[in-house]
């Protein structure tokens, strides 16, 4: 499948990245060559393969329900570009 400029603009919108009109052509070219490379996967029949959900074969570890964090408003806001 090939990606056209409209599709790329739509995806950029989803990703909240504004795309410079002057760069759309080269971006389209790059992305298409990458997707051509990626689409080698279509050679493989994976109908009967379970997708991998996690590389680790263990269950999710949980923590106790304790208040151990928060009250660090200053730290949270320290790097803020604009704050009240």
């Amino acid at each position: 499948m090939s990606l056209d400029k409209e599709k790329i603009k739509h995806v950029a919108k989803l990703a909240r990245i504004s795309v410079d009109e002057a760069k759309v052509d080269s971006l389209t070219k790059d992305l298409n060559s990458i997707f051509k490379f990626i689409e080698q996967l279509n050679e493989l029949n994976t109908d009967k393969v379970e997708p991998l959900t996690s590389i680790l074969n263990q269950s999710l570890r949980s923590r106790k329900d304790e208040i151990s964090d928060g009250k660090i408003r200053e730290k949270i806001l320290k790097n803020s570009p604009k704050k009240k």
Partner: protein
Amino acid sequence: MSKEKFDYFINGEKGKYEVVIGLEVHAQVLSNSKLFSGSSTKFGADPNKQVSLIDSAFPGMLPVINEECVKQAVRTGLGLNAKINNYSVFDRKNYFYADLPQGYQISQYKNPIVGEGKVLLDMPYGSKEIGIERLHLEQDAGKSIHDMDPSSTYVDLNRSGIALMEIVSKPHLRSPDEVNAYIKKLRTIMRYLGTCDGNMQEGSLRADVNVSVRKVGDKNFGTRCEIKNVNSIKFMQMAIEYEANRQVELLEDGKEIDQETRLFDTKKNETRSMRSKEDAHDYRYFPDPDLLPLRLEQKLIDDLKKSLPELPDNKKERFIQEYGLNSYEANVLVSEKEISDYYEEVAKLSDKKLAATWIMGDLFAMLNDKGLNISNSPISAKNFAELVQSIKSGEISGRIAKEVFEIMVESGDNPKKIIESKGMKQQSDPKELEKMINEILSKNKDKVDQYKAGKEKLFGFFVGQVMKLSGGNANPQLTNEILKKLLKG
């Protein structure tokens, strides 16, 4: 009780329409700390005080799940008679918003922790089962504050990351009343379980409402609209009412209904389309690689099941069997766990049926009047039981009991003490009464003769005299009996 008939339909010129409703309820999980971080969940703190580096999505921060939130979801699932999934997966739901620091919400998409279940509603037309599609765990978002400054939006992340249970019903609801009953039932179940406080003012219970209409008898569903984030039952009912009528009007005009998300404007009492965002629904779900699949041991589920409290449906049955209540009384008394606890404590020490009558009558009226809950009732269950017993034993009359009740509310005193100190005890000793009545009759021989000659309305006069002499404490029934007997003789 005679059963009413279900009759919520909308009549159009082209036919009679049925309203189909499904709810996605967001219930805040009761826990000390957040779903994936150790910050507090307490309501009402100063902005951004209960925020960790995880909640505010600093680089390199990672989520670790709160075991209690998992257990709360399982408990709720069990309370909804639902299938608990031993394997569930946390996914990222990706979208940008100022109050969503990570740029994604951790939720469960393909593999929720709880599968299908059901909830029973008691409607005037009989009981109705509402199917539950699923329940999953997810993070709450923060709050954007738009009204502090016209040029900027401020963000309070205290709520960001608090655990929510999204409970999705099947489209089985058919009227605003059923929605009311459903939400209340869910809330009751969760309060019994202690998994959600159900406080709608504080936002711990909110819902997205899916509404569609179809002609009565149609098998297929109509196109539905989703009304987002309604936070009171009243508003849900108003929104459904408005939305269903809007849809019927469109259909009557031969127009189509757009599947869309709408907002309920509480001021104008109408729903309106949310600004259409062409990409709003591409959430790009995928399993969160910072987390592993959640595998629940069957033993944990079994243990939680064993430790579950008695739930309203079972309790109601038991109240009917054990205490001889009727279905209506049992329903009212199990509607809140605290009420049922209070009732049981009273019932254990007094007459079960009379206790129910007095709780649902005078006690509720008083609490309602004073804006109190049963848990902060000025009358303890033990004192209430004594009051009920005093009535049952005939120690005081119903009329006197109301007076004692008033004094108990004011003073919090024990009824025995009040009755004694105020001399309100009912005279129920037949010998004492007979003595008293003989005294009255001998003093009023002329009236006795008149009565015997046929002037029967003098009976009231004699009763009055007895009451006067006893200071109002004579047992009225007994007084009547003895008076009749002696006047005959």
